[in-house]
């Protein structure tokens, strides 16, 4: 049974170049990742103050309720149109008959 050298595991590991090491270090140092366009500065101030001054959960609840209201209106409109089209089909069938 051969005895494993203590260095075997380390020698199997990939040996990065100094450039790679420097890049990996930079990636970790700069990893506070943000991407995407930011609002204009005044808007950023307003948004940050809003974050400090409003309760997140209550604010989210208001927003989701407003969104739900919009969806219900859309649903109502789709249902009305569906009803209208069904009536049209019925009228057409009645005329045929």
């Amino acid at each position, binding site marked *: 049974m051969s005895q494993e050298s203590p260095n075997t*595991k*380390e020698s199997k*590991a*990939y*040996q*990065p170049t100094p450039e*790679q*090491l420097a*890049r*990996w270090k*930079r*990636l*970790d140092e*700069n*990893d*506070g*990742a*943000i*991407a*995407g*366009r*930011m*609002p204009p500065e005044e808007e*950023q*101030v307003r*948004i*940050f*103050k*809003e*974050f*400090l001054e409003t309760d*997140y*959960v209550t604010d*989210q609840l208001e*927003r*989701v309720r407003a*969104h739900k209201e919009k969806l219900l209106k859309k649903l109502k409109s789709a249902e009305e149109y569906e009803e209208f089209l069904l009536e049209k089909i019925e009228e057409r069938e009645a005329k045929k008959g």
Partner: protein
Amino acid sequence: MNEFSFVTGMTREIKEGLALWNEKAREYVDTYYQGREESAKGTRFYRGVVKTRTITNNLSEIEEEKIIRSVFDDQNLLASLAVIQDTSIFVEEELVDCIEIESIVNSPWNLIKYPVPEKRKGAGTAIVEGIIKENRGKGLSRILKLFAVPEEKIFYSDLGFTETDGSGEMILSESGAAMLLSNLDQKRNSSTFD
């Protein structure tokens, strides 16, 4: 090297994660910035709060119209969130499919410069890696496009993104994406970097 799990779609855990981000960010403002907007202004943490807020203010609409991707860390905490959509770009006068990363934002503990216990380096890299691997798995385009503010360009540059026209728009090409994946594999197999 920290490992993260990649999550597709908007789950309850993400909603809980975003609520925690808000709670912790408020704590950090009080602890590190005297509870004042002016003291935090200009920091990456500040930009992250603004970016997160612009996402959460439109969460329902985003959930309906866009694609949400995220990574969770070894503490099961939401570490980074991305809003993406399919788009097309011209590459050598040919229109090709591409994934536009509309937004990426890391958790407040991964953005603040102070050494908070929740911090786990690598979340931003992990979410970009996850998006590339997801699209490769589906046989879709691995070209990524995003907009980076000047302070963040170096990070995306180191990931392999290149600027297109100086406006902040950056592209990661198919070959750039392949190189990034190979580079991250090498990093994982390296004993000299942790």
